[in-house]
């Protein structure tokens, strides 16, 4: 699977949580991420593969089972990894691109649905903002939801355990609230 979005949306934290959860279920795991220049407000795409026997840390062209989109326009770029069976779980959130007219929500969804029927748009950012007062945890919400909806074959309890392990004490309560919010 891939997690895509823009710099600073917490992709690497989500990757760490998923990797821990997969390890606790005895899967073989490989992930890949980018740091430095590539992170500064540009597109950030991270890869996670787990299963019985995993070699490559990168997902192959057209081979993603799940694309978790933290930003809508970035999902279109991730289509390089998609096929007609790829599930898209998308945060309803658009970060404008300087000097360019952003694509509308409608246009993006229309584009994605040309590729796969399994496209789900979630008001993660709005729900988190409304219920928790911040949309910074939209990724955790989406990830938890993916586990509850069985889009990721990892038990919610494994995700919960991993959140407790990875998230620093200071922010843990907020993240646990987010997890519970996704449950309901």
């Amino acid at each position, binding site marked *: 699977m891939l997690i895509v979005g823009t710099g600073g949306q917490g992709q690497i934290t989500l990757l760490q949580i998923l990797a821990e959860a997969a390890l606790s279920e005895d899967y073989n*795991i490989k992930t890949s991420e980018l*740091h430095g*220049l590539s992170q*500064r407000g540009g597109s950030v795409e991270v890869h996670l593969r787990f299963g019985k026997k995993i*070699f490559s840390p990168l*997902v192959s*062209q057209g081979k993603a089972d799940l694309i978790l989109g933290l930003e809508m326009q970035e999902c*279109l770029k991730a289509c390089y990894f998609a096929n007609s069976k790829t599930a898209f779980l998308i945060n309803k959130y658009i970060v404008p*691109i300087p000097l360019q007219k952003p694509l509308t929500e409608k246009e993006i969804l229309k*584009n994605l649905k040309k590729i796969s029927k399994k496209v789900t748009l979630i008001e993660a950012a709005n729900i988190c903002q409304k219920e928790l007062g911040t949309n910074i945890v939209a990724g955790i919400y989406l990830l938890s939801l993916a586990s509850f909806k069985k889009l990721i074959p990892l038990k919610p309890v494994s995700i919960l355990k991993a959140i407790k392990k990875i998230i620093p004490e200071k922010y843990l309560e907020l993240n646990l609230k987010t997890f519970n919010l996704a449950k309901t």
Partner: protein
Amino acid sequence: MEEILLNKPGKKIILLGNEAIVRGALEEGVNFVSTYPGTPASEIGDTFSKIQNSKFKIQNLYFEYSTNEKVALEAGIGASFSGLKTLVAMKDFGLNVCLDALLPFLYTGTKGPTVIVVADDPSCHSSAQSEENTRGLALLAHIPALEPSDPQECKDFVKLGFQISEKFKIPVMIRTTTRVSHQRAPVKLGKITKSGIGGKFIKEPKRFVTMPPRVLEMKKELLEKIEKIQEFSEKNSINKIKTQKLEIKNLKLGIITSGISFLYVMEALKELNLDLPVLKLGFFYPLPEKKIKNFIKDFKKVLIVEELDPYLEKEIERLAKEVNCKLKVIGKELIPEVGELKPEIAIIALAKFTNTKYKIQNTKYKIQILKRFPQLCPGCPYWFVFSAIKKAVDTKKVIFGGDIGCYMLFGLPPLNIQDYLFCMGSSVGIAHGIKKATKQKLITFIGDSTFFHAGIPALINTVYNKSNPLIIILDNQTTAMTGHQPHPGAPKDKNPIKIEDIVKACGVKNLKVIDPIHQKEFINTVKEFLNKKEVSVIVARRPCKFVRT
């Protein structure tokens, strides 16, 4: 961070490749670590820094962020000569910077075991200047070089590196790439060894002084060492053949690969449902030539899967002439020389190599995609500098020099003020050349950490050889691009070496320190300094928003 220090041998924890390198060094009881930050190597130093600034601080372990990679290596050489177990880490371009110190270090050899970690960045995800392959520099320096594929190997190879260094008294290089350094996977822990006590330098001029005629004897000794290490490499299990079939003899095809490419090869074999013998080379230098010859001697065709330049391919072509002159060695015909390898490239190459039918998922969907460039962060102090420059000069008429740091983004839209960009510190040296060659106005930017790294000799040259660029030192009080590491102008203990003091001492007369938030003063100074007959410097001081307290 506590997890990386767990002393529970056999337990599996998830580590980033760079963290696994740190863990390997800790398991070997490393004493001395130096580095200059650079993606994709930064987390090696950062992890040591975090450990040493925490309550888990390790006794008898010294860590420093050096001013540049050459100084980092030289410090490491001093520590090694004093008997300490030493690790030096850097990104690919760092090895260019310290090459001058590296070559003689191979001649003298080590006293305390020494590992040099170098992280390449194929596809230049976080690297301007060039798509470098430091394997070529390993050949040039005659430094034994190991190439791990995943975090487990990062740890294991660092340990092996220290062991080779100890046995043969030679520094050992661990060469990773972005997809190895920034790969996470479970790693089986070993036992952490306590670092030994402080060093002692014992005078041995015959060993540590490279004056001629001794230097040529040293070269001979180095080549003899390499021969012995080659024997070691022949027997070492990090060069291994992977196949399910018991008899390789009857097979006609084989694959040779190393590093990250090995993982893509194995993925491709799985995807294509093939079982071919694969020779995975853990050693890049010296190569286990006998093992390779034995592997290829009965094949009809062999595929070499390696990123960037065909170093292995050329060596294997040479070896094939000795044992199997009919062998078809295939490499760069199917594997690109530019850009990093990807699993789908390996799949397509292997399908062609074995005449296997395979249809890759077509992903040329007819969809609209916008290009998103990296940006200076909102609230970045460099926005103020940019804004003042736009108001002070006609940007079409002035030449703008760029250097390595966040301000490289000046070259991207919507800013577009960067007319040349090279390597660390080069903006000033090149500015001097342009000012000597033309009468055009020139403003060049250089960051604070970059100024300390390589800008000072170039500044002295502009003063000494008399040219008049306007140099703007962007002082955001941190090494921002690579993850906010400290530097001499912004150290942890708040006792800085002031950039303006250095600039003054270099003989610069036109000098001002300005907070760029004071736009009017900044604009007027730019206008004034551009008309000076001698070099001028503005230190634009305002902290990065992530270090503001």
